[in-house]
């Protein structure tokens, strides 16, 4: 399994990451090496084995659908790179 430049660009787009053209060969090489390492898994027959997502087999806890948090909107927005009147600002999306 090797990842060429086009595949690197596609994955970077999926992950919403800008990467520089000059860095693509290095990403291609390193990601290919990592996938080769991962490829060792394919030697194992895993037919019928239940996938494990929690080490202690605990199910996600549910809670009552009630408000438990106080309103800290302004406090939390102090870290926003661009905000105005309690709203996050982004480039225009709708014409």
């Amino acid at each position: 399994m090797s990842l060429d430049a086009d595949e690197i660009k596609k994955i970077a787009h999926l992950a919403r990451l800008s990467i520089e053209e000059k860095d693509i060969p290095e990403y291609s090489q390193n990601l290919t090496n990592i996938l080769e390492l991962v490829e060792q898994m394919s030697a194992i027959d895993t037919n019928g084995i239940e996938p494990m997502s929690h080490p202690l087999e605990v199910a996600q806890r549910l809670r009552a659908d009630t408000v438990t948090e106080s309103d800290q909107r302004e406090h939390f927005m102090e870290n926003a790179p661009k905000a105005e009147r309690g709203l996050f600002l982004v480039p225009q999306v709708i014409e």
Partner: protein
Amino acid sequence: MHNKTVAELSAGLQKGDFSSVEITQSYIDRINTLGKDLNCYITVTAEQALATARMADQQRSQGNAGPLNGIPVAQKDIFCTQGVKTTCASKMLDNFIAPYNAGVVERMDTAGMVMLGKTNMDEFAMGSSNETSYYGPVKNPWDLNAVPGGSSGGSASAVAAQLAPIATGTDTGGSIRQPASLCGITGLKPTYGRVSRYGMIAFASSLDQAGPMARSAEDAALLLNAMAGFDLRDSTCIERDVPDYTANINDSVKGLKIGLPKEFFAEGLDDGVAKVVQAALAEYQKMGAELVDISLPNSGLSVPTYYVVAPAECSSNLSRFDGVRYGYRCDDPVDLEDLYKRSRGEGFGTEVKRRIMIGAYALSAGYYDAYYLKAQQIRRLISDDFKKAFEKVDVIMGPTAPSVAFDLGEKSDDPVNMYLSDIYTIAVNLAGLPGMSIPAGFVDSRPAGLQIIGNYFDESKILNVAHQFQKETNWHQQKPPGYE
């Protein structure tokens, strides 16, 4: 003052030999004079620390002080600390002031502990050498040309150099145990779910776990007493009573069955480290423990499995960094997609981008079954190996890392080679078990650690086993030259 363990500081405070302000000031002085070369702190909270220390002393004078009241602690910069910069060693969070405290930080505050500052680490905890930090690499106090290990390299370096009596770390694939081994300190990764992940910036949620990094097993037990416990705000935290981890620490290890997985002593293990581990095992035999050969046949697959599970979860977790709500935002975005892509592209370092991309690939349409699902199936096989082993033995031992600390720059251009530094630690995270590293000797003047793995929720047992070793040996009391 700085030579005292947490247990000794606690006793001294109780007797009135010194105050928390005196302890705190002496550590701040050391950080100011010795901290620069090591680069182990990203932020030092000197004023806040002294204010907290004064409060702790006041509480003590009023007669309400627990064992950790007034004891300084360094927090890995992955834990949210209200009003204090919390960076995860990333440019992405260089300007982030946490609006709330992590669960473990709250608990330590309640115990009256004094935060000295935030320690350096690999960016978003992704790394085994502390070289991926946006704030530059941390140095190993045993040799400034050597890495301290990672990702909790700043905490390990600070504790080893006595720039903090104790610190916190987090361990997703070995990030507490491997740097503990490379810096010659004691580190414990608890059972998955034992310690709250609330406010601990997420890397791989099914593996991440926080724990103490200390100068002795006894100190690690004292801090774990404060850290462990249920937290509603972490949906995978386990609701289960927390024992006093110091209660059984003096039990004898006579008759203890120690499992030695043959896979941990095979090719790839440095000869010097193997000798150190063998000598430690002989010490346990002298104390009356019994060595039992075991096998973990699927453990060889843990690195490949981990490099699917962890990147997949990281690509999902790190999607929250979008340049909109907090964190780094690129200049002059032309549209929303450009804002996302350049904020992330410029805000994340290379290793983080690599792992996000591997994860995005493994989770993308058509590949999910071959990668993520397959990895989760193998994860069960790895976990089942441990279950079988623990039917026969009480604890499992082996090396923590395949070698002692390597030189700065030695592996930074070769990610796969770097990943193999965690070959003996990763299986423990995949299974969710508790594991420790304790100092067991030196190879060419660099420390080597012994790993002790316990069954689920057997933190008391492994702390006891580690403490018994530290009563018979003095490896954990060795100090790096220049930092005595």
